[in-house]
């Protein structure tokens, strides 16, 4: 191919050198790279830098003091509680879902496989609102909840449900491709050697799924930490009771406590970044 191209080009006169084939002239190439780098820097990095400088605008002491507010502490605790519960539920049931979708064919398979991506396209506000329609004071399940003396809307259980809805796809979508490429030969081998179903799962299948599982857990956790719209609508953001870290930031901004809002936003952003990038690095090293 190259030789043909070269010989033709030579015939074509000196102006078209073979390098011309897929490259712009040097300065145009530099311009193109410059435009893209400037776009990414202005769009993504400039706001990031602004937040860090905004958080420290009144000095490190002021940000630390703002962060030691008991409201921040209780908000952080609630955020962690919701995130851990979400991970526990999805870690188990999300893996079951991935297993069912990869290993079985049944009627409605396409439906199950299609609907689990819906949360990506549903607005978080709508998620919160749906839960209010179900569990709110005039909601569909209101009589049942009253009979059982349970409170879901404007309480932590509703916020957990909202977070579960929003994070549903991550676990299954991370585990499915790994499970798919692992196949079943090794499981058959284990079964032939007399292993029980559980033994096979824990000693053969699960170790192979490890990275998909860990990555799914981290993504779910990071997404749960940062959820805002759905927990705001269903939880109501009651100070000290249903206020997560994102809701604290929202209220602090509203009350013009800028240092507190910016510092908490920075901590939350950093935490999510470290989680996601750290896992990415770990996964690369593993490969």
């Amino acid at each position, binding site marked *: 191919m*190259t030789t043909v191209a070269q010989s033709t080009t030579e015939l074509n006169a000196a102006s078209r050198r073979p390098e011309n084939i897929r490259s712009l002239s040097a300065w145009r190439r530099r311009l193109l790279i410059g435009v893209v780098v400037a776009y990414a820097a202005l769009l*993504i990095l400039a706001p990031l830098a602004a937040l860090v400088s905004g958080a420290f605008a009144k000095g490190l002491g002021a940000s630390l003091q703002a962060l030691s507010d008991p409201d921040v502490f209780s908000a952080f605790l609630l955020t962690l509680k919701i995130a851990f519960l979400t991970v526990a539920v999805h870690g188990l049931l999300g893996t*079951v879902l991935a*297993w069912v979708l990869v290993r*079985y064919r049944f009627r409605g398979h396409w439906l199950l496989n299609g609907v689990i991506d819906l949360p990506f396209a549903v607005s978080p506000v709508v998620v919160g*609102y*749906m839960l209010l329609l179900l569990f709110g004071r005039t909601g569909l399940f209101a009589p049942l909840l009253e009979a059982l003396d349970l409170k879901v809307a404007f309480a932590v259980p509703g916020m957990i449900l909202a977070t579960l809805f929003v994070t*549903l796809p991550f676990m299954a979508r991370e585990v499915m491709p790994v499970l798919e490429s692992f196949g*079943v030969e090794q499981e058959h081998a284990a079964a032939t050697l007399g292993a029980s179903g559980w033994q096979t799962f824990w000693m053969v299948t699960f170790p192979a799924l490890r990275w998909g599982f860990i990555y799914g857990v981290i993504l779910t956790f990071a997404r749960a930490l940062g959820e805002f719209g759905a927990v705001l609508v269903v939880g109501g953001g009651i100070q000290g009771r249903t206020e997560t870290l994102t809701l604290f930031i929202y209220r602090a901004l509203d009350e013009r406590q800028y240092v507190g*809002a910016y510092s908490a936003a920075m901590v939350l952003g950093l935490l999510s970044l470290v989680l996601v990038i750290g896992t990415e690095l770990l996964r690369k090293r593993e490969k």
Partner: protein
Amino acid sequence: MTSLTPPLTVQEPPRRAPWGRWGIQSAAWTYVTLLLLIPLAVIFQDGLKGGLGTLWHSISLPIAWSALKLTLWTSALMAVINAIMGTLTAYVLVRYEFPGKALLNAIVDLPLAIPTLVTGVMLVVLYGPQSFVGAWLKNQMDWRIIFAPPGIILALLFVNFPFVVRAVQPVLQSLDLESEEAAATLGAGPTTIFWRVTLPALWLPIASGALLSFARAIGEFGAIVIVAGNIPLRSQTAAVYVFGEVESANRQGASAMSIVMLSLAFALVLVVDWLRKRGRKDAEE
């Protein structure tokens, strides 16, 4: 979403009792039904129980209509800019070597890791009236970014930056250079080659990435509520409108707008799905 699995007789896990199989399948169905399908069904039932006329009436109220229009045009403009800049970013990342390339590649994924509320806070710090940049833009150029459509578009661009880049990148990587070389041999310049040869091969991933970002933009809340504020008829988007209606207990308005947003988003996701499937089929041929 197609399955990637080959025919399944061999894929069956070994030695599993049939009741185990039914048990695990019903567990998966129950989980998805309780968590996803029932809430979604309830919202459609609530919004449609007055008939389509009531729904249309709620949407055509001036405040609702202007929120929907604002959402659609800012999302559409974002999708166009994102398609252009995302394609250029993918092109530069695949075809050129330059210092800082690894960093640029990492930056593309940042928006996925940062909570959208934090994104909104960042933009307010940078462009808000108290900031140096915000004050300068307002005084010198008479540009308002925060509490105005430009802020909404910036927030949407930030949040959706990865989608076009990550859709185009793998396709560009696997693109055969032969046709580009052939075009060059025939005397086409680099610009002509890009427009006539490279770009036509990329339209599927560009379109699916841009439409996906459009679908997500319709429902975006966290970044926008901070950046755009909540000014009816001026900077209130559909998601912020639903929030306001829920707060003021106007169930009809909230349900109607939710249904419109959900229907638009689901329709777009179906189109994206179809485009991706076509892309995979093209790749196999």
